[in-house]
């Protein structure tokens, strides 16, 4: 059997507004992207090839699911127009759909299934046509039944609608509660307790089942997690905070001594699923505005950098030329000679002498405006401080100085950089 | 570093694009790239094709000696392909083309921006330099 997933942008619009995931089908339900639940069901139903058809971007799903080899099936992707109906979509994908039974999953819906049930024989005996239609989505089958026998039993299947954030919330909670029915991520040493990799639970913290915790999570002293709580990856729950009956999606920080009860957290946004109200948590440790140095200090800093660079240009003009002439000299070139041409840019003002080396510039998504706006520089702060050269350490030092930059500090660092034996 | 200088004419777009693709393939194969190599190479093939097309299209048609310089530079974790022409400066940040209006062009830089991790555009010495970088790992 084959399966066709029809994904319409308009039906998922509210999910995109609510969650920051790259694609609505990648929003996690119980720490597992939504699409995986649909894939699991289609596979249990006997599908060996799945095509995802959308009137929007498919690249994010493709990046996640690939060609389906992870599940041992074939996944392909196709596009449609927003106005296409099911018949038109079948026609456009007729090579995929022809001569076979096709299970069609359309719209936003979750299929409550059981990984132990036999959907295969049930579905192969079902007549052609719709199985369930719940408004926000539907399940149907095309092609003649492959066998005529009566179904020995009707496996457990029910399809709750997902039309608002509260539906999503209660569905997540129900899925966690019925953990043994689904394939869920994480180590499962005991029922109702799923814990991922690299999870730190500090002394005095308490975990109450049922609970699911993702990867790279820190739970600080005195924090209480659960019951009925789902925590995504890269989450910190700071000391003496309580999180119960809640969902914390990836990259969430919960500050000290807070009580999160029946909420959805994502980043610094907290949503109350019952009312739909949201609150931005602007924690003083993470989110407070960073003091912007005044313009006068910026000019002064520019002057410091330009003067120092001019001095270096004059000082090093001869050795640089000498080394350029002699090929033999190239092997033992040192940092300052290598970067000599860059000094002119400092004088022109398009670079700084000391600053962030900008190794992280490729990641333009960084929320730190100051790092992004900082000018590139000839020497990194880490180099000036003779910090160990590992990339991640150097990055931290660079971040620190970009934030705490001042003319006085620059002078100090310029001197440090110049007396650094590695420079010369 | 590998450099090539090609006459700025339509027939050379393919040559430049092929050069970019094969270089990216070799780079990916030799630097432990774990993703889809064909896709990685296609990104460069397409980007260089777009960049070269721009260089030809916005060049002076009366100048038969106009050339485009291509240089390919690879580091341990990244490969950069630079396309340099002698044309008047262009706007490095064009507006995103509105597909519903059926535009027939203007997608070049937009596509490059989508495919590359880093795009650097400079006007120096009476020409445009477009440096396109992808990182691996």
């Amino acid at each position, binding site marked *: 059997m084959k399966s066709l997933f029809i994904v319409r942008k308009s039906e998922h619009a509210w999910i995109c507004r609510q969650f920051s995931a790259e694609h609505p089908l990648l929003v996690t339900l119980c720490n597992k992207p939504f699409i995986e639940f649909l894939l699991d069901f289609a596979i249990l139903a006997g599908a060996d090839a799945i095509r995802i058809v959308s009137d929007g971007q498919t690249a994010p799903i493709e990046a996640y699911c690939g060609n389906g080899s992870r599940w041992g099936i074939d996944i392909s992707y196709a596009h449609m127009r927003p106005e296409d109906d099911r018949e038109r979509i079948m026609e456009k994908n007729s090579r995929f759909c022809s001569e076979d039974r096709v299970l069609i999953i359309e719209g936003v819906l979750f299929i409550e299934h059981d990984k132990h049930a036999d959907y295969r024989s049930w579905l192969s005996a079902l007549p052609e046509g719709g199985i369930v239609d719940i408004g926000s989505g539907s399940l149907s089958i095309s092609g003649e039944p492959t066998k005529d026998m009566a179904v020995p039993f009707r496996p457990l299947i029910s399809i709750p609608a997902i039309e608002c954030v509260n539906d999503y919330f209660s569905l997540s909670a129900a899925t966690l509660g019925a953990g043994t029915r689904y394939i869920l991520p994480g180590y499962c040493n005991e029922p109702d307790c799923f814990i991922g990799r690299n999870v730190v639970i500090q002394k005095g913290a308490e975990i109450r089942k049922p609970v699911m915790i993702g990867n790279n999570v820190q739970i600080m002293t005195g924090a209480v997690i659960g019951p009925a709580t789902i925590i995504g990856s890269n989450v910190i729950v700071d000391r003496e905070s309580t999180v119960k009956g809640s969902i914390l999606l990836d990259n969430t920080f919960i500050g000290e001594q807070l009580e999160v009860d029946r909420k959805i957290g994502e980043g610094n946004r907290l949503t109350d699923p019952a009312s739909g109200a949201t609150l931005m948590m*602007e924690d003083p440790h993470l989110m407070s505005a960073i003091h912007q140095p005044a313009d006068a200090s910026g000019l002064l800093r520019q002057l410091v950098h330009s003067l120092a660079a001019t001095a270096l240009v004059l000082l090093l003009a001869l050795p640089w030329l000498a080394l350029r002439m002699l090929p033999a000299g190239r092997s033992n070139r040192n940092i300052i000679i290598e970067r000599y041409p860059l000094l002119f840019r400092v004088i022109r003002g398009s670079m700084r002498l000391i600053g962030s080396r900008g190794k992280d510039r490729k990641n333009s998504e960084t929320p730190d405006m100051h790092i992004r706006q900082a000018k590139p520089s000839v020497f990194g702060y880490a180099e000036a401080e003779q910090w160990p050269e590992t990339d991640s350490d150097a990055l931290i030092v660079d971040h620190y100085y970009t934030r705490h930059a001042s003319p006085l500090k620059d002078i100090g660092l310029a001197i440090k950089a110049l007396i650094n034996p590695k420079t010369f | 570093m590998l450099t090539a200088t090609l006459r700025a004419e339509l027939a050379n777009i393919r040559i430049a694009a092929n050069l970019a693709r094969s270089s990216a393939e070799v780079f990916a194969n030799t630097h432990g790239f774990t993703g889809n190599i064909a896709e990685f190479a296609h990104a460069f093939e397409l980007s260089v094709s777009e960049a070269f097309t721009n260089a030809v299209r916005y060049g002076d048609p009366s100048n038969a000696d106009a050339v485009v310089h291509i240089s390919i530079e690879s580091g341990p974790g990244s490969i950069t392909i630079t396309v340099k022409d002698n044309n008047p400066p262009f706007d490095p940040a064009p507006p995103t083309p509105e597909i519903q209006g059926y535009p027939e062009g203007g997608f070049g830089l937009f596509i490059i921006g989508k495919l590359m991790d880093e795009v650097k555009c400079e006007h120096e010495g009476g020409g445009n330099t477009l440096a396109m970088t992808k990182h691996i790992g």
Partner: protein
Amino acid sequence: MEFRIDTSTGMNIGIAVLPGRIDAANSPLLQQAFPEWLKKTSNLVFDCRQLDLLDSSGLGVIVSCLRKTIERQGDLKLAALSNRVAILFELTKAKRLFSIHPDTGAAIRAFSSENKE
């Protein structure tokens, strides 16, 4: 910040209507005004129907107002919290400190019924 005294229940109940946002910029104003109000009465209601944005400094001031009223054997009740502000009170456990009412009328009635007991 508007402040008035309500005597409809035979008690002097001070009602203050809080502005749309209380943050680090204007929370000192509330802190300065509050002792004046407290001289007139120690039974107070903060009407929060306009209040949409409250940060931790604003919350701190409201909690300190409560502490001052309790020192004078009075009470500070909150009325008409928006969903968003209610979440903040719940999150910080400040909800447990205050008696919270759906509107100012209910808060005033609560004062008089407490008085009878």
